[in-house]
């Protein structure tokens, strides 16, 4: 139920993001989803890729600091109010979203929301009980 997300520490200077994507590209790794959070001095790039183990290895070899976190991919109907209903359920159960980012499925019918929760297991439990679709890793990596 959990998805592997890798995160990369980047200093705010030109060319760093380009370097990450080049390294991944040369290793034949496909980026499924990404989000970049930044401050004045540094940024954190979060990525879902088709082979997170290999991605970590090649990035480390190239001198990057890389972390691994488990996140949850929630499927939401791509229509007004779709996300609101899910966040409402989570809020009712006192679950915090640390951050999230979204992309639209290739079919175009559903949006995929990548969520980092403060309590991942509890969040999965609540979402399942409320019949909300959670994407399995294999499916997401393979799209």
């Amino acid at each position: 139920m959990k998805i592997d997300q890798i995160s990369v520490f980047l200093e705010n200077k030109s060319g760093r993001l380009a370097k990450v994507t080049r390294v991944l590209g040369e290793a034949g790794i496909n980026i499924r989803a990404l989000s970049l959070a930044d401050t004045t001095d540094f940024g954190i790039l979060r990525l879902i890729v088709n082979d997170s183990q290999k991605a970590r290895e090649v990035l480390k070899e190239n001198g990057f600091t890389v972390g691994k976190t488990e996140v949850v991919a929630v499927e939401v109907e791509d229509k007004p109010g779709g996300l609101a209903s899910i966040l409402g359920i989570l809020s009712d159960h006192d679950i915090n979203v640390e951050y999230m980012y979204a992309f639209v499925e290739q079919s175009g019918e559903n949006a995929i929301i990548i969520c980092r929760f403060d309590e991942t297991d509890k969040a999965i439990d609540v979402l399942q009980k409320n019949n909300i679709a959670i994407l399995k890793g294999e499916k997401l990596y393979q799209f």
Partner: protein
Amino acid sequence: MIWDKEFETLPREALEALKLKRLQDLVKRVYATVPFYKKAFDKRGVKPEDIKSVDDLKRLPFTTKQDLRDNYPYGLFAVPLEGVVRIHASSGTTGKPTVVGYTRKDIETWAELMARALSAAGVTKSDIIHNSYGYGLFTGGLGLHYGAERLGASVIPMSGGNSKKQIMIMEDFGSTILTSTPSYALSLAETADEMGVDFKKLKLKAGLFGAEPWSEGMREEIEKKLNLSAMDLYGLSEIIGPGVSVECMETKNGLHIFEDHFIPEVINPKTCEPLPYGERGELVFTTLTKEAFPLIRYRTRDISVLNPELCMCGRTFVRMERVSGRSDDMLIIRGVNVFPSQIESILMNIEGIEPHYLLIVDRKGTMDTLEVQVEVNERVFSDEIKNLQILGKRIEKDIKDFLGVSTIVKLVEPKTIQRSEGKAQRVIDKRNI
């Protein structure tokens, strides 16, 4: 292990008598042979025969780095060049280097002192010494080398640099002792890590590290990463090179100064007043036995404290605390005195922080700013911005609490702070530009 039992464990009274005799000989000698000293003594109205006790040393003038520069290159030599068999020079980061010379006997003395230092660290003739101190004008490489040969150990003259090859040789040659600057030792640890070499599988058991100030936290880091016991070795080229003082393996608590060859003093660097034992100040050395380049009351700029308590290792020499900084690399940030080594100690107390850091001093308007660059490794990294910001704030708060100075912590990518192969560059001061 004590190399020279007779002198290293001399009862204090006999040691004082020996120091006095050697001091009197020295003063007579430099007065007669070095015009600089004759002039300086005459100016103070001191004659060699006025030295009746070791305490009378206080009547003699200080010698400074500037005096060495003014007499560049050979002006302070006490023997003609025919008697000099070796010339070294200190790393002159600003202007001309300072030049030092050795007679054949000086080289002998130096080798003896380094053999003492190595023995104190537990080195024996069956050891393989991997010497990564730089060979050349710098005294580190050759100083260690001669001491190792005197002791009878096998010495590998690696010098600094080419880290991958160093690790390979350590592995293949079965090095048991590492000698280098502390910052280069850590750089070697990183290289080994990249190569997938585990120090636990190497034969290294001890190391002597020196030539730059380092903290207790850095010692722990070196001992953990390189899986060896790390001893502090002190010296400076002006006095003789490495082998002025060393920690013993028994206590690792202060460095035994080879007092039968060097008289230490600690002074207040501002007023030049000698300070009693136990008070922190600038180290001053007088070389008792050196022939080619004797020095009277040389101001080292190194900050330390002298401790006369007898050590359980049996050496009777006074001990100096590890050098906590240099009076000339002391930074004054908005009126607060800060030594890079103090910041290093604070960083080393934070779990996961690498011992590589860079201080950038600048001035915005009339305000000094101090930026502390710290590398983000996997142990401190988080996918959440707030956690990294908490880390930055924590470091800023710790520095503020301990040193009373506000800093800006900048988190940088791993290995972007330059690794040294010799002495580490820790400070960039942009205020003078």
